[in-house]
Structure formats: C-alpha cells, structure tokens
C-alpha cells in the first residue's frame, strides 16, 4: 500500500512539473468548464429566483380564501358580505387591531416597462387595514403609508425597479384621476413586491366593482388551526368558498412559470453539459497523449498503471474544480440579484424577481464541473495506462 502511495506521489510530482508545458491545453479545458458552469448556474438561477419569490414570506399560519371553483385571485369574486362572514370563522389570529383577516381586490393596470418601454400588466391590489399585519414580512422602506380614502398608493420594490413612473412623488393615471405614489415597501422578497397597493375603497369605484372583493387573506392562530377554519367555511351554507393554505396557493400559481423556465433551463443545461463533457474529454485525451512518452517511460521503469490513472484523474479533477469555481463565481457576480420580470400566467400579470444564485446552485454547479472532470479524465487515463508499453515508447 505504501508502495502505491509513494508511486502516486511520484507520478503526480512528475506531472505537476510538466504542467507549465501543457498550460495552454489545461487552461482551455478549464475555461471550457468555466463557461458551461457559468451559463448553467445563470439559467437555473432564474428558476430559483422565481421559486424564491413564490415561496417566500409565506408562513405556515397563512391562508387564503377564494370563491369556490376559482384557481386564482383574478378569477375569484367575493361579496363584501361574504368577507365579513369569513372574518368570523374560528381559528383566525387576533392582535390589538382586531381579527387578522384581510379582504382584498386584485386587478391589473398597464404601465410601461423600464427596459423596453412597452406596456406590462402590473398587479394592483386594493387592501384594507389588516393587509399589512396579515403579511408578517411587510415593511415600508421609503416614504409613508398611503392615507385611507385618498388617491394614494404604495409600490413594492420590485415593481418600482421594473416599471416606469413609480418613483416617490410620481403619479399613475387611472382613468381621469391621478394616484400619487407615497411610499415603497418590501415583503420579504415575495410576490407582493411586484405589486402596487391602494385602499380597496378607492379601487372599487375606479374599477366599478361595487362592494366586492376577490380574496380574503388570513393569519391563523397556528398552522393546525387550518383544518378547523376550512371546515367551518366549507360547511357554512351562506358561503361558496375555497380556503387554501397560502403556501399551496403560491405553489399552484407558480407551477406553469416555474416548470417552463426549469424545463427549458434544464434542457439547455443538459445539452451544454454534453458539449462540456465532449470538450473536456477532448482536451484531456489531448493532454494525456502529449504525455504518452512520459507515461510509457514511467511504466517501463516499473510504475504501475493504477497510480498513473489516479494522477491523471486528479489533475483533471483539479482543473475541473478550478474551472467550476471560477464559473460559479462569475455567475454569482454577474447574475445574483439581477432584477427582472416575467409573466405570471396564472394571474396574467407581471411578477418581478431577482436571479437567485444560492449556495445550493453553486454547489450543484461545482459538482457538475467535477463530474465532467472525472469523466473527462478517466477514459483517457485508462487508455494511456493500458496501452502496451513498447508501442507507446515507439510512438513519436
């Protein structure tokens, strides 16, 4: 065993010394892997970003109530009376302001995108006083809260970053009226950050909705209280509603977008991965063949095939690791936090999100690189080690 080990050390030492000669092809192999990993991580970070937006800010205690038969807020409709009944259901948490149930109205408004100047469908939410407390991660970061009853709005950080005319003090035109932007808010990175909020009582007449809402967001006393809450609402003969855990609701909303991006992204990543493997194999074969004489000489001298294979593979892994690290780093630098928006098919409105290059993705990228390095180094190494020594020595 010691013999083996010392052989490995000797061979590796030998190959490290010849590395400068092979610098060109080694750097190329590494760069190839860098490119693939950077693009892969970049593309998948889009899906991660969407997912993060969808999933965040949703506690286990949160639930949403829609009209039965609707799958999204947009399609749902609840009478003002219904929302009052819902607010009386058991299991809802309370604080000093009262019951934490928030009836809300959801519409779309057209605003130009900052990047292209063309119109986008921006979500506009009509809320009541409870909306902020129901969402535990809500936080005003600039300006102030709008005054109830006035034509004032607050905008999410995401919305402000993507759409034109949402700076503090600017006004949006709604029909004949102008609504003033008085504050900017954050909501833990969640969907709400793509939205504009206004007093429901102001929104309803503007969009001719009478006293109707679309959903009621509630914060329950505990996660377990959901079953009781749901039972009470579905068995109430006055109501025809569909209560859901908010997490479930978002999951169903995001499916189409997430699947589309992940599907496409993975397909692209796989194809690129194949290209990377071929490229890596190619470079490794070339690198190994340039050392054929060295390797043949070592074997002629008595070194065994095993240590040689290990040495070549380790070099390949090292290069791949370096390449993967750089690629992941580049992706993180270039993509992480990059704000953009896409269309949420479920609500037909824009959802803003930031590319999310998280630790999990970085790790995946580097592991993928190492896999390429392993495959890329193993085959040429084995081939070199198995070639008849005499033949290898003869080859010039």
């Amino acid at each position, binding site marked *: 065993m010691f013999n083996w080990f010392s052989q490995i050390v000797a061979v590796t030492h030998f190959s490290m010394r010849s590395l400068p000669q092979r610098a060109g092809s080694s750097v190329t192999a590494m760069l190839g892997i860098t490119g693939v990993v950077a693009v892969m991580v970049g593309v998948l970070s889009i899906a991660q970003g969407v997912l993060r937006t969808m999933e965040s800010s949703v506690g286990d205690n949160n639930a949403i109530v829609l009209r039965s038969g609707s799958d999204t807020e947009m399609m749902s409709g609840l009478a003002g009376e219904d929302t009052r009944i819902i607010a009386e259901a058991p299991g809802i948490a309370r604080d000093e302001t009262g019951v934490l149930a928030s009836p809300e109205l959801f519409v779309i408004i057209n605003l130009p995108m900052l990047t292209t100047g063309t119109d986008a*469908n921006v979500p506009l939410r009509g809320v009541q006083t409870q909306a902020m407390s129901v969402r535990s991660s809500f936080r005003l970061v600039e300006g102030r809260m709008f005054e109830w009853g006035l034509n004032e709005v607050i905008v999410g950080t995401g919305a402000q970053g993507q759409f034109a005319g949402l700076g503090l003090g600017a006004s949006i035109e709604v029909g004949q009226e102008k609504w003033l932007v008085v504050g900017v808010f954050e909501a833990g990175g969640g969907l709400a950050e793509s939205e504009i909020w206004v007093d429901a009582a102001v929104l309803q007449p503007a969009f001719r909705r009478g006293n109707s809402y679309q959903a009621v967001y509630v914060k329950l006393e505990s996660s377990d209280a959901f079953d009781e809450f749901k039972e009470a609402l579905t068995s109430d003969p006055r109501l025809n509603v569909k209560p859901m855990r908010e997490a479930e609701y978002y999951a169903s909303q995001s499916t189409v977008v997430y699947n589309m991006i992940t599907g496409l992204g993975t397909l692209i990543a796989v194809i690129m991965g194949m290209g990377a493997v071929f490229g890596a194999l190619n470079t490794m074969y070339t690198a190994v063949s340039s050392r054929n004489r060295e390797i043949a000489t070592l074997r002629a001298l008595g070194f065994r095939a095993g240590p040689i294979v290990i040495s070549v593979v380790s070099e390949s892994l090292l290069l791949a690791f370096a390449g993967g690290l750089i690629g992941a780093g580049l992706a993180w630098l270039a993509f992480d936090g990059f704000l953009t928006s896409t269309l949420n098919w479920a609500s037909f409105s824009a959802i803003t999100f930031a590319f999310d290059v998280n630790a999990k993705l970085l790790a995946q990228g580097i592991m993928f690189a190492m896999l390429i390095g392993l495959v890329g180094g193993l085959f040429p190494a084995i081939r070199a080690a198995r070639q008849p020594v005499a033949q290898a020595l003869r080859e010039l």
Partner: protein
Amino acid sequence: MKYFFLISSGLKRKKIRTGLTILSIMVAFILFGYLTAIRQAFDAGVEVAGVDRLIVRHKVSLIQLLPQNYESKIERVDGVDNAIHSTWFGGIYKEPRNFFAQIPIVPEELFDMYPEYIISDEHKAAWLETRSGVLVGRGLMDRFDWKLGDRIPINATIWGKKDGGRTWEFDLVAIYEGAEKGTDTSQFFIRYDFFDETRANGGGLVGWYTVRVSDPDKAAEVAAAIDAEFANSAHETKAEAEGAFIQGFANQIGNIYFIIMSIMSAVFFTILLVAGNTMAYTVRERTNELAVLKAIGFTDRGVLGLVLGESLVLTIIGGTLGLGLAWFLVSMGDPTQGSFPVFYLPVRDVFIGLGLIIAMAFVAGIIPALQAQKLQIADALRR
C-alpha cells in the same frame, strides 16, 4: 478534390480526438437550432401580425371592458376600414393546465378581419347556423384529439351563466387552418351573440377591438385619432399596432433576445475555444509530417489549405449533424406543452447556421493553419 484523402487521413490520425471535436461542435449547433426555435416561438406572433391591424384596449387595464357601442364610433374615424370586438372568456377546460384562448366574437367579422384563418365554406355555414357552435384551430384540435361534432364543456371562471351555472357547453362545428407557418391555430372562437345572451352580467361590454386601417403607413396616426376620440371619457382607450401589442407580451415574459443571445454566444465561444485548441495541438503534434509534406514539394499555402481544410471538414460534419438533430428535436413539439402557439425552426435560421459553420471553421483553424504555413522545413525535420 484530389487532396481530400490527405485531409481525411489527417483527421483519421487520432480518431477519438476527431470524433470528440465533431461531437462538441454538434452540440453547439443543436443548441443554436433549438434556441433559435424558442426565440422564433416568442417572435412568431409579431411576425405574422397584420401590418394593417390595430388593437384598441382599455387604457387603464387590460382586464377592463369597453362598451360595445364603441364599434360604430371607431369605424367613423378617418382611415378605419373595419372594427370588430373580441372578449376574453378565460374558462378552464377540465384542468387549468390545459390553458388555451377562448374568444367570443362575431363570426362574419372574424372572416373579414383575419384572412389568415382558412375556413371551408361548409364550416363557415355550420358555424353561422349553430348558436352554440365554436370555431377551433387545427393546432388545438390536434392537442386534445377533438373531432367535429364534439361537445366541449368549459368551466367559466369569469362569466357566470344567467341560469346560475358555470359550465358552458359548446359544439365543435368549424375548424380553421393557418395560412402561414407562424399563424396561431390554438384558439377557440365562440359566437358573440350566444355569449352575450347567456352571460349573467357584463352585458354590452366587450374586451377589446381589432381595427383594420386602409393605409398601413398611416397606422400610427389612426391609432392616435382613435385614442383622441375617447379621451376624457369614462373608458379611455389605448390603440396600437397589433405587432407592437404582441411584442409587449413577449417583452413581459422577459428580454428573451438578450437571454438567448447570451447563452448562444457563451456556448459558441467555449466550443470555438476547444476546437481551436484541438487544432492548434494537432498542428504542433504533426510538425514533422507537415515538414515532410513541404520537403516533398507542397507549398506553404498548400499546407495552410490542408489545415484549414481539416478544420472545415470537422465543422461541417459536426455542424450539419447538430442542425439536423436540432430540427429533429424541434419537430418533436413544444417543450412547454402548450405555452407556445407555434414551435418550429425557420429555414432562414438554418442558413444562418450554415454560415456560422463556415465562420467557425475559419476562426478555429486560421491560427494553426498560419503556423503550419510558416513552418521552416529544416527546423521541423530536425526535431
């Protein structure tokens, strides 16, 4: 080409290396082809949009409705040839996943406004006869395996029925084909009169107007005139060219061009690097051989040609294989299963791909080829 066997022998020297390089190049072009098809899917709507058509919608919000009586007012605007209304039905067929557009519209108006929808006279008549009849696109028919005469139930989320129910039933009596490859044949057209008399509320309100202008060059002016007509009214409008409207949607989905171009560039650059490096290495390795060729009497330029020739053969094989495979993959259909109304690889882009193949061959091979050209025989033979 009598030198061909020399080129091919050079490539056969290290079969594995040649094979792997070809495979890498193949992958680059599969990606090129597939990404191009995706980009085309986003662009297709814009390309086939009628140059003489405008979309007029509610200025404040896409989901706000417009009065039906706007139609005659719009038609009175100078430069307008015809105006028709459409509405978003937004129902669900079995599951939300099976998303497709359902649109109440007046049949004769549709025939007039959309010449790219090809419908047989028989079907036109059938639709006009059946109040609950629907006109369905070929793509949609194929997607769900529907047949003429089927009864299609749609669960309405927005529009309740006067009788209180939410399930609307339609009869499939007419089919339309697309005139061009990019024409959307995934739509479901409902008769407006049936829709209007059955819906519980929203009577007299429609979603948006499609307007044909008599002179496409004046489209912008006519759009402005329409908006001016309804400015300061209870329902202000926004009119724009159909192409621009569709582009707006694509833009919302994301800056597709940028993303796709970035990916393609990254991939190409990487593969170019690998191919170039392989070729450079090959030349270094074959210094002796190349010197012998020169000694025998091959000119400097001849040897340059040999190396470039090898580069060309490699990339042509890899590139055409890649484009071919991309074509095959694309023909397997929309990867998002329904989000793209059309999905195909335009012939124009295949030609661009071929051009790229040649360019890649040159860029990857030129430096090694120049090195081969400059090789000094005496030096090289001595090694």
